[in-house]
């Protein structure tokens, strides 16, 4: 889905604000939320792809205004309700005020195509990223869609996030693809810059 989480190339956010001697967790509940999500994923309440997609399904303004671990807490509560482990009424009684993520898009379907035994592309191959806009989960950032690049490294054959987030089992090779700055940003690109993105086989086609 084309949600606000897909931030690459977006303007207007201002300078990067760093913090000296930053603690690992800024509040006790943050560390405990991290651990709860680890436990829930470990217990197979949901997989990491479903978890990421639950964050992406947060209302855009809520996503941008809330802290990182509020994203985690929201996604966890959303998945517990959607998986039937907690009734919405029980959650509201015990933990009032949750603004849960929005439902999965009704047309979100897991792609079924797995990679063959052999990888389709090899290092050095020119590729173009397909211009797809799936309504469900994807790990193909918008800023590379339709753009030409070159494969620099073959990765492992992994669960396809677009499938795994929606109950699918497809597995595909991943590739590290190099994109020249000017092919992504045109004349606004800074000189001698390149972006490397990990992309699943199904996101790519021959030019």
């Amino acid at each position, binding site marked *: 889905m084309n949600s606000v989480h897909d*931030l*690459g*190339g977006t*303007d207007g*956010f201002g*300078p*990067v*604000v*760093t*913090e000296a001697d*930053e603690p*690992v*967790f*800024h*509040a*006790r*509940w943050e*560390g*405990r*939320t*991290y*651990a*709860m999500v*680890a*436990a*829930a994923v470990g217990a197979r*309440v949901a997989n990491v792809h479903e978890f*990421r997609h639950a*964050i992406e399904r947060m209302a855009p303004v809520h996503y*941008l205004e809330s*802290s*990182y671990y*509020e994203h985690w*807490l929201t996604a966890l*509560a959303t998945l*517990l309700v959607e998986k039937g482990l907690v009734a919405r009424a*029980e*959650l509201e009684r*015990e*933990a*009032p*005020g*949750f603004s849960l993520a929005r439902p999965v898009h009704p047309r979100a379907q897991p792609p079924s195509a797995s990679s063959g035994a052999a990888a389709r592309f090899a290092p050095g191959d020119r590729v173009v990223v397909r211009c797809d806009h799936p309504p469900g989960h994807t*790990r*193909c*950032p918008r*800023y590379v869609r339709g753009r030409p690049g070159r494969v620099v490294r073959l*990765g492992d054959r*992994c669960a396809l996030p677009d499938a795994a987030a929606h109950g699918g089992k497809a597995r595909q090779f*991943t590739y*590290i693809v190099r994109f020249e700055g000017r092919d992504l940003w045109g004349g606004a690109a*800074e000189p*001698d*810059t*390149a*972006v*490397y*993105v*990990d*992309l699943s086989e199904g996101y790519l086609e021959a030019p």
Partner: protein
Amino acid sequence: MSEHDDDGHHHPQPPSPIELRARALEDILKGKGLVSEEFIDSVVGAYENDIGPMNGARVVARAWVDPAYRARLLADATAAIAELGLGGPEGEHLVAVENTPTVHNVVVCTLCSCYPWPVLGLPPNWYKSAPYRSRIVREPRTVLREMGLELAESVEVRVWDSSAETRYMVLPERPAGTEALDEAELAKLVTRDAMIGTARP
């Protein structure tokens, strides 16, 4: 932070709404047997004490003093960090990218917060923030300059967006004038930001 903290007495603040929701969710999960106090303590303790940039610093220092280890790290970083007893979640597909006099590498996750936990721990807030994620792929030289890292025009900048299973760590250049330092002393020079690529050691 409480406004009363500086008077020497502890005045507990009422928990914030998000804290209350986290606590309530925790009770629900505990009630269903999905999480235990021991598990929470062990996970929080691990990331607060044991899993952090000091691990990656050991890897970098070893690569600086041992050319054969450096070669193994660049060929298969997951196997190379396992030699130092490191590994685990978000480190199963680790790639080390090497800075040279002509190439500078920097790591991001534009879609969320992917990060090489076994070597760097959990990411700082700025790494997960909208400004960094939105801008570093489009104007890396400007962002790095703003963060205090000036790069010559002759240096190519490579930005690594961790969108699939691969996680990246930067192998920085060994600073000049460190020939006399041993591996442990070198490790102390290696910062988290140097291994993300937003600073030099």
